[in-house]
């Protein structure tokens, strides 16, 4: 898991803290003379002139002191965590520390809520950051770097079968509401480069991170709109129905294709879909699906595609 993010560089004073995190433990210092707890680690007590600071293992639990949701990445390297849920946690012992929240929906975050530590291994050497989640929040699997749930296949949903020639049943699928989100995939620079090579569109805004950072309007490279569009093939959208009973299904093309917002290199994307229209045509049943692909956390779609499918 290579990362361009700034990584902690431990010093002689802070090493026990980072070492303990690798062992999934939290240790902080307490002054043996004035009994005050201290964070971040150091050699001198910040409450009295003592240098007798002793390490103690603590549960790491605390309360959420404050947080914000950064809608614009604080550094380009953090685009994969967008929107970042930056937080300050007050440990039960008193000291405050900077962290990020994971596994919590924005609506589930409250200042003052109880939180517990999550040990997030962020590189191949085992370097571990101390993230936080709700005290009772169950995290799905091991957290990826700053990610609530690791990218992977979307959850399986029980699907009802709809016959393509049952027009009434097909029309009942039309809805203004979208499906749940698909799995998430990361659109990294390597993928963009490979697409540039394949398509021949090697415009610098896609392929030259240095120039895009300096001259581009987005502070870095962005994916081709057409790349985002075709990545729909990699998104498994959890639909609760399955169309059956046809002999042939034709991809008729698109009624509308729009790219309303950019996808920065390194972004995670996911998609969702709704049935926009169903109509009887001469050769069978035509269904128009609206597929929207978003950068994870962004309300504005990166791609809108009205796909037309003909069941014969």
């Amino acid at each position, binding site marked *: 898991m290579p990362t361009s993010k700034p990584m902690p*560089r431990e010093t002689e004073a802070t090493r026990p803290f980072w070492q303990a995190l690798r062992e999934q433990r939290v240790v902080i210092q307490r002054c043996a003379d004035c009994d005050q707890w201290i964070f971040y680690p150091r050699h001198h007590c910040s409450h009295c002139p003592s240098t007798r600071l002793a390490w103690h293992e603590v549960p790491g639990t605390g309360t959420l002191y*404050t947080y914000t949701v*950064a*809608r*614009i990445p604080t550094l380009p390297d953090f685009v994969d965590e967008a929107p*970042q849920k930056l937080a300050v946690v007050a440990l039960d012992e008193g000291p405050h520390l*900077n962290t990020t929240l994971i596994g919590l929906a924005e609506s589930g975050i409250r*200042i*003052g809520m109880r939180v517990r530590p999550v040990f997030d291994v962020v590189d191949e050497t085992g370097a571990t950051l101390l993230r936080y989640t709700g005290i009772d929040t169950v995290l799905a699997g091991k957290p990826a770097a700053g990610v609530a749930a690791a990218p992977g296949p979307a959850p399986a949903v029980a699907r009802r079968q709809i016959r393509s020639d049952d027009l009434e049943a097909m029309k009942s699928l039309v809805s203004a509401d979208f499906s749940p989100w698909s799995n998430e995939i990361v659109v990294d620079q390597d993928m963009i480069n490979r697409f540039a090579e394949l398509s021949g569109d090697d415009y610098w805004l896609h392929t030259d991170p240095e120039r895009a950072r300096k001259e581009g309007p987005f502070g870095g490279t962005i994916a081709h709109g057409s790349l985002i569009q075709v990545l729909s093939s990699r998104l498994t959208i959890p639909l609760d129905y399955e169309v059956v009973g046809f002999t042939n299904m034709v991809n008729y093309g698109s009624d509308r294709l729009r790219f309303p917002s950019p996808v920065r290199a390194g972004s995670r994307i996911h998609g969702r879909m709704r049935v926009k229209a169903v109509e009887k045509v001469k050769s069978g049943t035509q269904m128009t699906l609206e597929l929207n692909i978003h950068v994870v956390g962004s309300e504005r779609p990166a791609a809108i595609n009205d796909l037309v499918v003909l069941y014969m």
Partner: protein
Amino acid sequence: MGLKGEAAVVGYAQYRPEKYATAPRVFHLEQVADLARQALHDAGLKSADIDGLVIHGPQFHEAAMFVPAMCAEHLGLHLNFAEVVDMGGTTSVTMISRAAMAIEMGLCQAVLCVIPSRMAPLGPDDDPLWLAKVSRFGGHSTAFGAPEAEFDLPYGHMGQNTGYAMIAQRYAARHGYDARAFAKIAVDQRASAQLNPDAAFFGKPMTIEDVLASRMVADPLHVLEIVMPMAGGAAVIVARRDVAARSRHRPVRVIGCGERLTYKSPTYSQEMTTTPIRAAAEKAFAMARVAHADIDAAQIYDCYTITVLLSLEDAGFCAKGEGMRFVLEHDLSCRGDFPVNTHGGQLSFGQAGTAGGMSQVIEGVAQVMGRAADRQLARCDTVFVSGTGGVMSEQGALILQGN
């Protein structure tokens, strides 16, 4: 104890804030010389009158050390007092207090306080991406051993926006949050900026709805509640009473000052919604022997709307938790009943780097001198000026009064 009001601001100069991309690139030594020349002309003093220098040290282009001596050499000054200040956004306010202290201690008679904030020309070997690289981590140190490099940056805690946003969120949790009240701060200041042709947002009026509809940067801060960094620069001359007496304008005495620094990151404050300006302002008011009711205009450092609101509360203009009501009940514009940031504030004037805070000092001085043109207050004898550096990390207060 404290200042006796023997030192006064007698003149100033300020570059109109400009976009970095199109602003002239000038060596910092030359900006210092140019700003000094303009400020001396403004004050009606001669170069030989200046025997003190207070300058912003960090980010000085031509050198990281020996900056005051280089300036003395370049400007032909004979300095009896020199000082480098490193206090971020409160540098300007604390420069004025240092100049006044040095004068009252008898060390010098007239002090040039100067902050060059335009970029310097690129040299043949300079990397054109230099600025992008050095500003990548904002005000955060990436040096090995710097606490913020180790405990902020790996988590993505970077820059000012999210720090101020987290202060605002905590304020909301403790006292409630009316986004319209915060937006109104920016809107009232924008109204004043419509009377200030030097303001970056002159000719661009703004409504509360505009602010609330603008892009959310970090909850709850909209982009129109966040200051725009620009190129610029400013100089102010502070002089002893006898020198001030032969200056061109109404001398503006420095009668109170205070400052407070306790942390760099508000994460490590005991309570991040109780800000350092409380101690700084208490000191300044006690020293000046004036009451809040005596203040004709408040020039409050405004990197964000939350900065203004917390400063109004903690400097004692209203009670803790009452800031939103106070803002909604008063017109903060230069036509209003409680004038705040009558030049438009940095939010509408533009933030010329560290010199941004000097725009508030200069506006306070201009109002007392009676030189604020279309935005001149009917009566302005006493002003309060605040400065804020880092993320509420360091704050300073000044009280200025006309003779």
